[in-house]
């Protein structure tokens, strides 16, 4: 990149290759698709996390748009300041927060709640890889039931993380957000469409992107997309859109048993070794069944 005028900008990508993510990183793909959908007239506010670290190894950066990282917990508050000031100046840049699940579900909750309650015109995007990966795989409020992490280790006294995933989309919809959506790196077109839609809607919008992490979940980096698809097809992840608090569009699937998804990852290995833990697997299947019923994702089987 030499110039920064529209004419010289031959690439459609504002998140460039050459960053330092692991091979097969789900969040890296999310970053690329988000930046592509958002375009050049965008300011990115990042939280501490993998994306912050791997996309900006000193003295380089993968971002071609203005980008700021402040602390772990305050991206939504920094974005609030950026947006309020731009608005007062009559400027039209779009403001996007890109933060991980630890920053979103746990430490940043206070600032996020404030941003949504005050109604800033910011699109907050959480890349959800379901644990603190940057510090070495500790559980977060987004870690699924029974996943083993370094702070929810499976063993004789534990089956891994004992709590279900926090429902952040519902919490932000309850703040009166006009647009809340979930998507996955396994559905790239859907992800980009949702980013564009959120940016076109005034007010605080939220998108949660399922972003499989080969390092933290324990699978081969060439299978990232496949893991994303298995999550969707098993019903453990659901792509949907909520407009003014009402679920509108849901991705329907021909459901497969959760086994196929769980067996593909080392973080669930303890459920199958030394012998299959049928009780625990049944609990996870029940979560998928409950999701299927709640969102109506099952495609009816033709007789």
């Amino acid at each position, binding site marked *: 990149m030499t110039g920064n005028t529209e004419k010289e900008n031959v690439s459609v990508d504002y998140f460039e290759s050459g960053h330092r993510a692991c091979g097969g990183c789900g969040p890296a793909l999310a970053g690329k698709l988000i930046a592509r959908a958002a375009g050049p007239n965008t300011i990115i506010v990042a939280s501490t996390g993998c994306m912050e670290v791997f996309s900006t190894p000193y003295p380089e950066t993968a971002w071609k748009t203005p980008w700021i990282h402040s602390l772990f917990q305050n991206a939504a508050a920094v974005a609030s300041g950026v947006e309020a000031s731009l608005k007062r100046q009559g400027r039209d840049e779009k403001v996007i927060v890109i933060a991980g699940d630890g920053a979103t579900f746990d430490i940043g909750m206070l600032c996020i709640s404030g941003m949504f309650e005050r109604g800033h015109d910011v699109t907050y995007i959480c890349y959800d890889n379901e644990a603190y990966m940057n*510090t070495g795989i500790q559980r977060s409020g987004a870690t699924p039931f029974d996943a083993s992490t370094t702070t929810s280790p499976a063993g004789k006294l534990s089956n891994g993380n004992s709590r279900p995933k926090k429902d952040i989309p519902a919490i932000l919809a309850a703040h009166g957000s006009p647009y809340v959506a979930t998507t996955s790196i396994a559905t790239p077109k859907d992800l980009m469409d949702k980013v564009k839609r959120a940016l076109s809607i005034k007010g605080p919008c939220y998108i949660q992107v399922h972003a499989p992490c080969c390092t933290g979940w324990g699978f081969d980096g060439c299978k990232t997309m496949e893991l994303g698809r298995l999550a969707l097809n098993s019903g453990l992840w659901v792509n949907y859109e909520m407009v003014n608090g009402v679920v509108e569009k849901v991705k329907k699937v021909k459901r497969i048993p959760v086994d196929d998804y769980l067996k593909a990852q080392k973080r669930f290995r303890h459920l199958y070794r030394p012998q299959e833990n049928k009780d625990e697997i049944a609990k996870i299947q029940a979560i998928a069944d409950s999701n299927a019923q709640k969102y109506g994702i099952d495609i009816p089987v033709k007789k």
Partner: protein
Amino acid sequence: MQGNIACAEGALAAGCRFFGGYPITPSTEVAEHMAKMMPKVGGVFIQMEDEIASISSIIGASWTGVKAMTATSGPGFSLMMENIGYAAITETPIVIINVQRGGPSTGQPTMSAQGDMMQCRFGSHGDFSIIALTPSTVQEMYELTVKAFNLAEEFRCPVFLMSDETIGHMRERIEIPDSVDVVNRKELEKGKLPYETDADNPVPGFPTFGHGHRVHVTGLTHDARGYPDTTNHKTHSDLVRRLVGKVESKRHEIADYDIAGTDAEIVFLTYGPATRTVRQIMKDSPDLKIGHINLRIVWPFPENVLKEFPNAKVFIVPEMNMGQIGREVARHTPVKVVYLPKLGGDMHTPQDLMEAYDREKALIGGGN
């Protein structure tokens, strides 16, 4: 064994049965080890949503009568500041591990520093006193963590293990004793008020929740009953003077250091990694007259140790900060103090110290 693991093991040996924490490099191994070990000893490990919640949880746990600890590094430590003052004024025994990294802000997450030494002492608003221990070996990560719990129980104040990335991530062979000396909580005597003290006993007994005491815990200025008394000048003055005095008046008993070469003119004062470097140059150059003070407890500052070096013409203070404890040394001695900051993430090398030694030697002149 790794330093951070030795710290967690020391805490368990001291009787710690509650850990509330949040992942942060370079301290995370403490939390990870606690997550693994707590179920085995019947204790509690909770991962909280941030460091404010982490320190809050251990304060809550401490009032139920258990020994509680958290571990963090720079940014998380900054988030804990308000609660450190709360623990001080409510006299809640807690242990905080700070495996220091380069700051300010996110700084150098994977590199070593000692930039929080003033922050642990003065970071929270108002006047109070705390105790801060500084390990320079993995063995001391274990021993000083045990000691930190004992001091927290004895003085009812926040106690800090101010380690750093170098010692936290260092691996050394250590000796774990079959048992360690443990100080347990002194329960409030029946019939006494929760904060009833006298000049000889400035630390009140602890009115554990549910043990039959009438307990009212507040961060407001409070009287001996524990009830708010926020506009009475004397109540506030007495309380703050006691919070400071209960630790500062005992600083020479609390002091923990070792000294060498007490007849030397050039004296190194170190804590943490630089202690290792001084020991190395003393080993490499046994003929040189080098004085050495290694502080295992930096706060309260044991200024009497400086008097052990009657011939001292200069105190050299190598620190991985811009001179935080060096300033404290200068406050207590008319002798020249030379700051030797090392920033960027590395500990002092023997060359760093020898250069400073030679420079000062040339200035002093004369024979060895």
